[in-house]
């Protein structure tokens, strides 16, 4: 419990940051209580959850350290956010938590083109980093939610997979260093960077070449601060992150023509030695086999399951066009189990080899190319959407305004496909009763990573957020997902965890190696005062032993 009055907290924050960067007015704290998926946490009643005590705008690590130390001393909680998208950015209780909105920390601190590492601050999004990397023939992994999300957050604090996972790994894999303001206010310089004598000195010029390893100090604590899902902002503040980079064989400036909502690559041209394919398998087993073979073949730059319905939504300029235009209708109604494959070769020979091998796999596994997706404009648009991660919002959010994910976790490809089948069956009931958008029920999104050794498929769903009945259906569906995840060994679903953390951990911990007890131990050890808002991570006091 906070031992100080709100006015005193605000005065202290003003003392650290200046008046311009501190605000505790009701209109402002209410604004920070609003977010995506809040409706699912409020039984469909509201898009608002708890209001923070105040919001502050730090600009550097030193200021954050002061705030965190103050919180520990005075019994106030804090929580940091970067781009702030999703209810997990909200606070866990009313009027007791300071939000640190890190939007003023918006610099790319260093790009090491030789060692392929970039060091960024919290407010650098995928789109911002990528546009600078392309100039050097480099690229980064961007999470599937879109390139408007923070690059730092995806590697340090959140689970997150992108379309290019087959060639770039996923969020957990792409961190090669971080600066972490721990919950008590100490600065942990992680991994290789921390071993350089200059690390963290005031005048230090960040040199990405020093940030080549994220593990350590001592035994790796990467699993502690981020682990499988990330701490959702509940374990200190990450102020800098080093991100692993990848080769980009496409052009160093990817420009588009057309005006909103109709952009495409110039003259619908794909970059040299690249192509994109939408391939359909009628049978789940063939799909499964193809996924493995494609992953093992190492020919894909991007390999991802996207269903025709979502593709039609992402491509169509409006919902009305999606329903009324033949092209989108054909795309949406085709059915089957699909994979979108993008091949990029560094030269013609390599590209031809990869394309040949792709055709071989498609034939062997009874796949079929979706003829509609071979149309130049659609192909160019999907290429843009995948590379830039720029059409997610219209692919899933525009339909009914309500969108979330449900069943699905990270595991073997076989296991993911089995989960997809269960998800389809479960969702079908809610579609049949009219509450959810009829996307054909089987709408898993995801892909195999790293030559197929690891994978994920998550069941997406949409609903009309302006309709109370549809919101209710969403809540009921998510409850059924929790039950299904308990009944089947499907792991901690992505759609179950983005809620009130401890409640879910109490359900899933006992059936998953008691992981919640480990989380509790970590939280207690690193944050003895529970100063770092545990709301969406784990609250030690709520963990059932």
């Amino acid at each position, binding site marked *: 419990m906070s031992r100080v009055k709100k006015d005193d907290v605000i005065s202290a924050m003003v003392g650290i940051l200046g008046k311009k960067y501190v605000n505790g007015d009701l209109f402002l704290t209410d604004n920070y209580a609003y977010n995506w998926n809040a409706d699912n946490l409020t039984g469909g009643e509201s898009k608002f959850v708890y209001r923070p005590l105040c919001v502050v705008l730090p600009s550097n690590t030193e200021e954050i350290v002061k705030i965190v130390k103050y919180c520990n001393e005075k019994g106030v909680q804090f929580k940091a956010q970067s781009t702030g998208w999703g209810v997990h950015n909200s606070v866990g209780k009313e009027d007791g938590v300071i939000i640190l909105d890190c939007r003023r920390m918006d610099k790319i601190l260093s790009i090491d083109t030789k060692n392929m590492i970039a060091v960024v601050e919290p407010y650098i999004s995928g789109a911002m980093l990528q546009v600078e990397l392309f100039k050097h023939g480099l690229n980064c992994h961007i999470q599937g939610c879109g390139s408007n999300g923070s690059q730092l957050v995806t590697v340090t604090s959140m689970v997150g997979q992108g379309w290019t996972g087959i060639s770039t790994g996923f969020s957990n894999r792409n961190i090669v260093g971080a600066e972490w303001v721990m919950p008590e206010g100490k600065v942990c310089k992680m991994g290789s960077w921390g071993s350089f004598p200059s690390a963290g000195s005031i005048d230090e010029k960040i040199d990405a070449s020093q940030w080549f390893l994220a593990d350590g100090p001592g035994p790796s604590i990467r699993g502690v601060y981020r682990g499988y899902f990330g701490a959702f902002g509940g374990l200190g503040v990450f102020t800098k992150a080093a991100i692993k980079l990848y080769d980009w064989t496409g052009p160093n400036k990817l420009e588009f023509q057309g*005006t909103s909502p109709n952009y495409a690559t110039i003259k619908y041209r794909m970059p040299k030695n690249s192509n994109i394919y939408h391939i359909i398998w009628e049978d789940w087993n063939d799909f499964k086999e193809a996924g493995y073979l494609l992953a093992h073949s190492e020919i894909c730059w991007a390999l991802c399951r996207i269903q025709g319905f979502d593709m039609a939504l992402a491509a169509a300029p409006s919902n009305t066009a999606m329903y009324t235009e033949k092209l989108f209708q054909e795309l949406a109604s085709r059915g089957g189990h699909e994979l979108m494959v993008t091949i990029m070769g560094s030269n013609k020979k390599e590209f031809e080899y990869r394309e040949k091998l792709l055709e071989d796999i498609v034939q062997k596994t009874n796949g079929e190319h979706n003829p509609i997706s071979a149309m130049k404009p659609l192909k160019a648009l999907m290429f843009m959407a995948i590379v830039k991660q720029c059409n997610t919002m219209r692919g899933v959010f525009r339909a009914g305004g309500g969108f979330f994910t449900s069943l699905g976790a990270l595991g073997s490809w076989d296991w993911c496909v089995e989960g997809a089948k269960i998800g389809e069956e479960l969702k079908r009931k809610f*579609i049949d009763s009219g509450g959810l958008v009829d996307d054909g029920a089987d709408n898993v999104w995801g892909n195999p990573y790293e030559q197929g050794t690891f994978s994920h498929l998550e069941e997406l769903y949409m609903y009309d957020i*302006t309709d109370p009945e549809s919101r209710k259906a969403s809540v009921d569906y998510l409850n059924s997902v929790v039950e299904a995840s308990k009944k089947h060994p499907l792991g901690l679903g992505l759609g179950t965890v983005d809620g009130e953390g401890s409640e879910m951990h109490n359900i899933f911990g006992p059936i998953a190696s008691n992981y919640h007890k480990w989380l509790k131990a970590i939280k207690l050890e690193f944050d003895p005062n529970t100063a770092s808002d545990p709301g969406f991570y784990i609250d030690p006091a709520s963990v059932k032993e």
Partner: protein
Amino acid sequence: MSKGKELLKKHEDDMWRCSRCSLCKFPPLAQIKSAKFYSSCCSIDYGNFHPWSGGGKLVMGFSLLLDRVKDISENMRDAILQCTMCGACDVSCKYSTNIELEEAIFDLRQYMVETIGPHPVHKKYADAAEEFHNPYGEPHEKRQEWINNTSAKSNPEAKTMFFTGCTAAYRQQDMVKASVEILNILGFKFQLSKDEHCCGSPIYRTGQVETAKKYFNHAIELFNDAGIEEVITACPGCYAMFVAEYPKYLDEEHLKMWESITFVHMTKVIEQGIRQKKIQFKKLEKNPIVTYHDPCHLGRGAEPWVPEWKGTKKKVYNQITIFDPPKEYRRGGKGVYDLPRFILDKMKTALDFVEMFRIKEYAYCCGSGGGVKAAYPEMALQTVDNRLEEADHVLEEALEGKNLEKILVSACPFCKTNFENGLEASGRNIKYKDINQLVLEMMEK
């Protein structure tokens, strides 16, 4: 429900739909060209807290609608008004959603005015316009005095009227003088009216809609009574009001009058002059490097009016709402973007042109619109400096170390004032030129 609340209620569905994705803060993701110049919203760049963004303002409206926030404090008023209403957030949001963001922001502003009254500075401008027919409180009889120093004359028989606009008439006479000199060279016959009043823009855009409406009717009646078929203006503020805002509020009689008039911006006149070879440009030995700033009211704001959608909404695929007939959206792409670029391209014997990163419908605002320059001058200066930094960046890159003049060109008296103030404050080595003045200067005579 009060009339004010009805303004908010109209947007309730969109208030639910906002996912807080922050796309309103950036150009559409495919259009981001620089990590440094990534922002599209001068409001959030000034206020930094989320309520200053487009989505944040939508949520502010939701808080008020639901009575979660009952009173509009002075700070909340500032969060609402520290926005130039430039419309960039709306362009970005509508690439991906069907949310009418700019309309919601504007209705929040109206709601604020109806609840606590306008900002005192904005009220002062409205009061001045009431008395003097211009928001600056200048004597009405001096409105058209600037023409005395030009070679142009008002021709009462002409079917074309040149609409000066208050800022051009009283504050930026150089650009309007250049405009009429060009018209004269091209042989245009036009009227200037002593009965010209403010177009209503500065009053309307600060949320004082009811007060502004009478200026709309006055202008339309003025054109109609003088038998005008074509109105030319150099002011994008006036132009955007004529083509995009007036028809929303005119009654049937005035709408009919409006439909009989063609509204033309000076860039169109110059383009035609070039095509007809009446305007040709000098050849210079040492070309300056030029970049162009798209004024919001000539770009996004000048996309023609779309009548309010009427039809049937129906649900398909259980929970997706569609419109029958299809709804037409204003997405900002149909503003005046190509004309100034055509002009600058034809001047390539006299200058070298380079684009900034944020252009056309994704252009970053100069910071002077929506009553910001008047009520929040420090925000206007911060914003214009952001834009000048971008201009300087691309101009310097294009210079490649050469010692040439750097020029920023635009086509709006409000932008002109703010850029000139910004250059004075920052001391940046860039010259600002209005496109009319540049054309006149570079023209072979």
